């Protein structure tokens, strides 16, 4: 049986040569992403801004404007409506809740909407609803931001101890790039940004670091093997050697995520979209941000990297 080979043997793509152009494009894209976040803002879910989110299931595809006017008539504040992608009969309704609202105010809103919609649209039922008070949502934001920062810092420190400081810095920069791009994506599409997306961002960080470690590990190995080779050439070699693995792994994960996106139901849609984007961005940044940055940060060939003993490969292949 002939086996599938996605990446041909012994590729020699000169990734590093176009790194200046890649840097420029990456920088522009990242700035654009940050700009988008500031200009358009993120469409925060109730987890982060507080309020009431109701998911209502109708018997037929409901006309959005009629639902909106029905909710507006109830006098419960300005509603944000959204049709849920896969299930056209469901609508998510988000309503604000005053910070100083008395206990039970959220219940009153939920009851009103429930009764109001059931009266106007016979057969409409609740799928789920969430209420979050302003105080809790502040904490959730704080914990989310803290989690992301801690993850980036923890991983940077780990790779600094394992390798050289240049690896720590380049990895941290690359991961920050991944996170910012993901945020930009959410600002652009205005998909709801909730707690699940924070989990997705953390997973992207985990995946992205996985990818970078594999290449960094190979760079370190090659630095011991070829002490005289100059850095750009060495990085190209390492990236090329690991390319089959990079492509295979990205493809398998994208296969898994793709099936989750198509068949996994609307609740996970935001999560999966973020992950797919993150896998692509993370794979890109392994080559064009973290590895290329090592040259800029002046990592010298022949530097003793790490403290472990010479590998078998070195002894076998002087």
């Amino acid at each position, binding site marked *: 049986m002939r086996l599938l080979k996605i990446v041909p043997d012994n590729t020699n793509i000169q990734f590093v040569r176009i790194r200046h152009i890649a840097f420029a494009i990456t920088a522009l894209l990242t700035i654009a992403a940050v700009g988008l976040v500031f200009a358009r803002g993120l469409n925060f879910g109730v987890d982060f801004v507080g309020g009431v989110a109701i998911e209502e299931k109708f018997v037929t595809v409901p006309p959005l404007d009629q639902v909106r006017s029905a909710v507006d008539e109830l006098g419960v504040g300005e509603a944000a409506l959204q049709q849920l992608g896969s299930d056209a009969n469901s609508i998510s309704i988000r309503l604000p809740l005053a910070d100083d609202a008395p206990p039970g105010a959220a219940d009153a809103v939920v*009851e009103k909407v429930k009764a109001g919609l059931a009266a106007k649209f016979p057969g409409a039922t609740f799928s789920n609803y969430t209420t979050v008070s302003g105080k809790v949502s502040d904490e959730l934001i704080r914990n989310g931001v803290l989690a992301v920062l801690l993850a980036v810092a923890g*991983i940077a420190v780990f790779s600094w101890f394992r390798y050289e400081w240049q690896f720590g810095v380049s990895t941290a920069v690359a991961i920050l790039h991944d996170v910012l791009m993901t945020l930009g994506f959410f600002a652009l599409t205005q998909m709801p940004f909730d707690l699940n997306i924070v989990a997705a961002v953390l997973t992207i960080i985990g995946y992205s670091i996985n990818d970078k470690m594999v290449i960094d590990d190979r760079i370190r190995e090659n630095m011991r093997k070829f002490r005289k080779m100059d850095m750009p050439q060495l990085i190209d070699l390492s990236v090329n*050697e690991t390319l089959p693995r990079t492509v295979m792994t990205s493809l398998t994960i994208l296969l898994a995520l793709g099936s989750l996106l198509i068949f996994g139901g609307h609740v996970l849609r935001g999560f999966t979209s973020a992950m797919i984007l993150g896998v692509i961005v993370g794979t890109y940044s392994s080559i064009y941000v973290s590895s290329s940055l090592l040259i800029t940060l002046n990592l010298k060939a022949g530097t003793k990297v790490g403290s472990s003993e010479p590998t078998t490969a070195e002894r076998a292949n002087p």
Partner: protein
Amino acid sequence: MLDFPRWKVRAIWLGILVMVLLAVPSLLPERTRAQLPGWVPTPTINLGLDLAGGSYILLEAKTSDVATTRLEQMREQVATEMRRAPRVQIGDISTRGGRLSFMVRNVAQVDAAREKLLSITGGGAGLTGQREWDIEVVDQTRFVLTQTDAGLTQAVDRAMDDATDVVRRRIDELGTREPTIIRQGSNRIVVQVPGLDDPKALKDLLGKTARLEFKLVDTTADPAAVLRGDAPVGSQILRYQGTGQPIAVKRNTIISGDQLADARQSYDQNGQPNVDITFDSVGGRRFATVTRENVNKPFAIIVDNQVISAPNINEPILGGRASIAGGFTVDGANQLAIALRSGKLPVDLTVVQESTVSPELGDDSIRAGILASVIAAVAVIAFMILTYGRFGIYATTAVVINVLVILAVMGMLNATLTLPGIAGFVLTIGTAVDANVLINERIREERRRGRSVIQSLELGYKEASRTIFEANVTHAIAGLIMLLLGSGPIRGFAVVLLLGIATSVFTAVTFTRMLVSGWVRKNRPTEIHI
């Protein structure tokens, strides 16, 4: 590297067999599981609320109440203690500014008063050796008592423990299945009730403090003053539940809900719902004495500072029973009965976060999650076998076992599977394969460099193992942070992710290496297709 002693091979297979068997109960439908004989261990994974449907409610306690309640209690204790012989004359007692202060009328009694204070504040030192109250004397005769931070923290802690117990009792009374009630942080309680899709009744019940008090009505009060909200000295103005009409009652509680033995919803002679209460023996005796002393006077029945009714005492009530009537609905009476029976909440609780998922959406999510997982697994398996042939089969066997091992471990830990957790599974399928991709690519590479089959295999496993270890450590850092800082569903995701990282090292590296070594030993291949 490829040497596997026979005992090791057996141990690995045995371990896998046990794990797979332990995963089975979680895969069985609930009905089949119930039919298994009792000696069969059935570790099962709980379904999270987003899959099972149900309510998640986060309650927050107003801990400032604790300080106020404690101050009031101390005020009553001080008043009682000073009246006891040898009596100390005190006056101008106040709880303004969060401090209790009073004046000793006779300077000569200051030391006696201090002795008494020390005895009720625990000699100045509580169980932990920390003082709970600071006692100060100003202007020679004025005592000022301030709660210490340590004492207050302890009191809040006790109150929260009590509140958690009360919440648990009340939810148990509702007869819902398998509720989870956990104290969280210093002032919160998490309540999770699977299968509940309208939590309104539950929230109403938890919103009730259920502080029951009987107080005498102050019949001497001037009705006009009562309407203005002015109460005579020693009395206070309370309002009727529903109508909001004011009424003057004595400050002193003649009997409280603490002495209750039982409370039941029932009907009065007119068929109206009411709540029958039974006092315990101490409470019953006290109730008898008080009613005997106050025949023909009205007393107010007060729940959570609202007057339910103020009936007249026609004759002494000796049986230790009473009933509370006041225009209840059956549900309202039932709720009050449950609340009274389960004891009063030492603190007020408010809902600060809530999430309710209907069981239908939960079912949809499970179906979608399983479908997505199966399709993802099939796609990945096909892809791996097409790419790596025999080694792809080894890798996918490892992945399937990995999923079963994760299920088994989750079952043993009684962990909760959430929708993000299913996403974690799908992702684990993707990343577990990565370890084998690393190994196989390395073997390909070494073969290309002209090494022998055996050498390539050995080097492939050895070199890739180091990379896998490093990548997994960093991945685990992200997972751990999620576990520590995440909430609810995210934690479920982190659990699956971390377990997947740990078990994949075993299945993707050790297990496949064993399979490869068995094949190599048997066939002595001179060429491998990879």
